[in-house]
């Protein structure tokens, strides 16, 4: 089999950087394989992906040595646009990458540049539209789409250009569990049926691991390439089933729920009685609230009570109204019917409730983390900003520019700046986008600490495993209403789509790897 992508002794350093982000990397990715790139933030995943079609170094600048051959073309000789017929690239934030206004024109854009005959274009667009399930969107404006819809359109536009190699940076980060499963299955079909090579970077390994043929593990200064089980072992990471399998000595460590079930049958777990602390007094109450935009109702009637010390995961498919509900609870969006009340009155934005927006970058404007927190507490001399820096574990980064931090820590800075308002309720809108496991652990730790101090948090997320690990309660939205509300093991365990891997393997009541490992060794 020939190789679709070859790196030969590639070393690359961004302009002004102290260290090379790729250091003497050599690897071969065989044609027709599904490649997963994973590793911590800062490990060089994105750089590696962007080197495949020459965006690195043609757009990044910096020092580049060695060579990259993609579809037998040397990226030093070919610019990204000269590779466009062979490689398609879907960046992490598809919203910023759209060129034209209408979805259908956006799908045709790449083919127009390649001079594809019109008859071929029509057929390819039909295929891409069917594969991604976006037929209903074709006449819409790309600017009016939800995050998940944009992600599908961006992938369809890349596919329509008919590449041999498809490179995707976190292609499912904004998709709900079912949507992500569908997109990954569609990509796997292209690999199997058409021999396309797919290279995807992902942090959430639980869905993608079973599709991957090859895993590229990117660590700072080191890249490991091999079969999934082998690379996960060496990285000491992997989806929850792999982590549990490794801890319990299952050999080979399973990659899918199906593999894990065979071992699980022979494993006995002793259930310990963990009493979950009861929710404190109600701090925020929504009574049959409805809201919408431009005459269409997104929420039709939601009843919800948040108690002190609760950590609530807000879940539901793309477009189910999660962001709208958070905006209602924060007092940013007035309800069209019903009411939102704290113990004393309507929620005061930034006083009773803080909301951390989807892009944490949109609130950061100071040149150090410490200033960022201080600017929130300005005018309240009785509040010590250092308290929040400590609570969020940011002490070592107090004098760092927020934009020089990893995506995960930037989120913590934005959350700290919001919590510094003193609001007892913190709402987070999809905080896990682009977070590596370490950053997710930091977020989980913070939420637990915040709850222990009596704070209430609610976070919208598509990440089932995070909800299982971090939430004390799960609220599920669908069709503008709350369709399930209760303990994670009840709400998630009862769902075919939202159940975390541990529930799928060991049955109801088991949520996280650490819980299972503790029960097996006791």
């Amino acid at each position: 089999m020939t190789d679709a992508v070859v790196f030969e002794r590639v070393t690359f350093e961004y302009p002004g950087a102290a260290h090379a982000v790729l250091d003497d990397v050599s690897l071969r990715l065989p044609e027709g394989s599904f490649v997963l790139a994973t590793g911590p933030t800062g490990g060089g995943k994105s750089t590696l992906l962007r080197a495949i079609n020459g965006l690195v170094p043609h757009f990044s600048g910096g020092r580049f040595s060695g060579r990259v051959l993609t579809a037998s073309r040397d990226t030093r000789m070919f610019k990204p646009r000269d590779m466009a017929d062979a490689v398609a690239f879907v960046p992490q934030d598809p919203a910023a990458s759209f060129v034209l206004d209408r979805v259908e024109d956006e799908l045709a854009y790449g083919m127009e540049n390649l001079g594809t005959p019109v008859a071929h274009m029509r057929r390819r667009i039909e295929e891409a539209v069917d594969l991604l399930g976006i037929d209903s969107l074709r006449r819409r404006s790309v600017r009016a789409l939800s995050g998940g819809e944009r992600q599908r359109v961006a992938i369809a536009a890349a596919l329509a250009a008919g590449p041999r190699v498809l490179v995707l940076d976190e292609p499912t980060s904004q998709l709900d569990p079912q949507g992500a499963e569908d997109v990954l299955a569609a990509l796997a079909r292209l690999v199997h049926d058409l021999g396309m090579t797919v290279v995807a970077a992902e942090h959430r390994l639980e869905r993608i691991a079973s599709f991957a043929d090859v895993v590229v593990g990117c660590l700072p200064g080191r890249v490991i390439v091999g079969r999934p089980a082998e690379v996960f072992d060496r990285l000491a990471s992997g989806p929850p089933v792999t982590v549990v399998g490794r801890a319990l000595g299952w050999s080979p460590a399973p990659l899918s729920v199906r593999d894990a079930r065979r071992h699980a049958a022979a494993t006995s777990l002793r259930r310990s009685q963990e009493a979950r602390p009861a929710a404190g007094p109600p701090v925020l109450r929504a009574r049959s609230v409805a809201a919408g935009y431009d005459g269409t109702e997104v929420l039709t009637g939601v009843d919800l009570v948040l108690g002190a010390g609760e950590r609530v995961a807000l879940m539901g498919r793309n477009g189910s109204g999660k962001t709208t509900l958070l905006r209602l609870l924060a007092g940013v969006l007035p309800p069209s019917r019903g009411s939102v009340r704290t113990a004393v009155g309507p929620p005061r934005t930034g006083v009773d409730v803080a909301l951390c927006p989807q892009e944490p970058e949109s609130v950061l404007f100071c040149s150090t983390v410490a200033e960022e927190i201080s600017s929130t507490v300005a005018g309240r001399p009785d509040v010590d900003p250092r308290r929040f820096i400590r609570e969020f574990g940011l002490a070592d980064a107090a004098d760092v520019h927020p934009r020089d931090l990893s995506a995960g820590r930037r989120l913590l800075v934005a959350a700290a700046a919001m919590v510094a308002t003193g609001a007892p309720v913190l709402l987070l809108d999809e905080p896990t986008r682009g977070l590596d496991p370490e950053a997710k652990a930091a977020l989980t730790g913070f939420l637990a600490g915040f709850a222990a101090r009596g704070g209430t948090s609610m976070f919208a997320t598509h990440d089932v495993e995070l909800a299982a690990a971090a939430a004390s309660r799960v609220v599920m939205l669908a069709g503008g209403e709350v369709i399930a509300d209760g303990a994670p093991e009840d709400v998630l365990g009862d769902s075919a789509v939202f159940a975390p891997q541990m529930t799928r393997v060991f049955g109801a009541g088991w949520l996280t790897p650490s819980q299972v490992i503790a029960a097996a060794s006791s």
Partner: protein
Amino acid sequence: MSVHPGAWVVWAFCAGLVAMLTTNPFYLLPLVGVSWLVYSARRIPGPSARSFRMFLTFALVALVLRSGLVLFGTLDAGNLAAAALEGLRLGTLLVVFGTFNSVADPYGVLRLAPRRFYEVGLASALALAFAPRMIAAVTRVRDAQRLRGIHISRMRMLPALAVPVLENGMEDALVLAESMDARGHGRGRRSRYRPLPWTVASSIVATAAMTALAIFLIAAINDVGGLVPSMLPPAWPGAESILVASVCLLAVPALSPKGDSP
């Protein structure tokens, strides 16, 4: 029936030039009305409607600023009236441009540009994308900062709005430039998916607009019709009915019913 982006370019060019040729309010005010009619009848639904309102605001600001500037010079009724009329001309131009922006898909117009102008095309695409994204970003950042008790109304807090908007704007522009290149923008060959047909309506719109411009040019060359009325001393300017009628020719696009989006 749909109107070809090229016909919209002709319309905007003619209407803009007509506005440039005169400061007479009896021609400019009907032109503003005509623009409004065309906008109402043919606007593309979506964010473009917001950008029309933005241009309308700019137009009012231009009118007020131009009239206000005279306060620094000799203040008399004649100067003030002349300045107000010049402000009106500038405002009318902005309204015409705003209308063009919301009736013709700017990206559709961009694609008419010959491929050889790669850099120009790239720069215009970035510029066209910038304005609507900035408007969206300003709203988003202002809302987010309000949530931490920072109100942008005070001048001192302007960085809290400007820094994230500009930084994210720069990052977005870079992503767009990379994306365009990675998708083959600027390669030699090119084909068109669903090329828009040059319809009968397109011909009618373009012919009517060019006729209006021709009549104004003739009037300007022969110095008739009071295109640039003297305001010393200030007096109500006169107007030729044939010139007012030719301004109305620019309303032709509003007459034909809108078919598929243009």
